C-alpha cells in the first residue's frame, strides 16, 4: 500500500488551520534532550511532552482539553520548532514563546506558572518558596512544587529553574538528568 504523502497531510493541516477547523496543532521534534511533542493551543504552546510520555495518552488528553480536531503540522508550527531547536542547540539565548495554560485548572497553580514564565530568566534559579511568594502566597511552597511537577509546558515555562531551598537539584518531570543538562546549558550550574 502506498503510504500517504507528507505533502497531502501538510495540505490538510494547513487548510484546517486556515479554516479555523483545528482545535490544536502538534509537531514532533528531535532535540539534544530527546524527542519532543509540542502542541499549540488557541493562544500559544499548551503542551510539551518528553519522549518517555506515551504519545497516545498525551494526544487523548489534548483532545479532551482542547477539542478532538487535533492535527499535525511541521509547517504551521515552524516558528515554535525553530525557537525550541535553536534554544536547545545553544544557538539562541532566549526561548520566548506564548503559552496557553488552559491545561492548568487550579488558579494558584496557574499563577505560579505564569509568574515562572514571566519572571525567571535564563541563568537564574528560584526556590519553590520564593516562587510561591512571588505568586502571591508565601506559605504555599508545596502548591508551587505541585504546579511545577505538573507543568504542562516544560522548557517554555521553565520549571527546571526551580530548586529546593534545602539544596540539591530537586525533582523534574522530565527526569533529573534533563534538568541538569538544561541548567548547564543556561550556565546556572
Amino acid at each position: 500500500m502506498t503510504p500517504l504523502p507528507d505533502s497531502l497531510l501538510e495540505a490538510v493541516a494547513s487548510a484546517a488551520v486556515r479554516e479555523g477547523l483545528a482545535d490544536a496543532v502538534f509537531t514532533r521534534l528531535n532535540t539534544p534532550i530527546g524527542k519532543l511533542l509540542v502542541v499549540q493551543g488557541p493562544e500559544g504552546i499548551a503542551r510539551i511532552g518528553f519522549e518517555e510520555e506515551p504519545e497516545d495518552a498525551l494526544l487523548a488528553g489534548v483532545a479532551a482539553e482542547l477539542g478532538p480536531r487535533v492535527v499535525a503540522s511541521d509547517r504551521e508550527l515552524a516558528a515554535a520548532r525553530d525557537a525550541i531547536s535553536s534554544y536547545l542547540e545553544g544557538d539562541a539565548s532566549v526561548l520566548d514563546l506564548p503559552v496557553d495554560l488552559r491545561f492548568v485548572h487550579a488558579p494558584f497553580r496557574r499563577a505560579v506558572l505564569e509568574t515562572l514564565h514571566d519572571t525567571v530568566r535564563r541563568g537564574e534559579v528560584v526556590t519553590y518558596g520564593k516562587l510561591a511568594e512571588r505568586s502571591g502566597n508565601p506559605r504555599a511552597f508545596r502548591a508551587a512544587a505541585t504546579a511545577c511537577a505538573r507543568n504542562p509546558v516544560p522548557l517554555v515555562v521553565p520549571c527546571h529553574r526551580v530548586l529546593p531551598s534545602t539544596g540539591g537539584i530537586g525533582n523534574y518531570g522530565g527526569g533529573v538528568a534533563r534538568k541538569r543538562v538544561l541548567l548547564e546549558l543556561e550556565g546556572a550550574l
Partner: protein
Amino acid sequence: MTANAPALPPFWSLVEAHGDELLAHARRVAGPEHAEDVLQDAFLRALRAYPRLRHGEHLRAWLYRVTTTAAIDAHRSRPRERPVGEPPEVGVSDDVDADGAFEALIAPLPEAAREPLRLRFVEDLDYDHIAGRLGCSPQAARQRVSTAVRTLRERHAA
C-alpha cells in the same frame, strides 16, 4: 470536556492509523489521478463534521464513507471535457468517464443500480429525463438514484 460529550479520539490519530488504506480506497473510487485531491477533501469534510459526531464508534467505516462521498462529488463537479468548438452532445458521451474511474466505482453494483447512477452522474440528466430513459415516474427515478447511492456508500464502507 462535558460529561455527555463523546470521547472522540484526536482526529490525527485516525489519519495516521487509516490514512494509507484510505488513499488506496480513494484510488479505487476516484482513480489514481484524482485520489489525493479526493482524500484531502474527504479529510477536511471529516474534520468539519467531527465534533458533531454523536459517538466515537465505527470511525474507520465513517472515514471510508466520507471518502466515497467526496469521490462522487468530485466526479460530479469535474468539468466535462469536450473538443473545443463542438456543440455539446446530447446523451451518452464516452469521454466524461475517460479514465474509467466512475465505472470502476460502480462496478460492484448490479446493472439495475448502475444505470440510474450513470444517467444522473455521468450524463448529468435531471430526474424527468432519467425517468424517461428508465420508463418510470420522476419520483421513482429519484428513488432509484438515491437507493443506488446509498448501496454504493455501504459497499465502499464495508
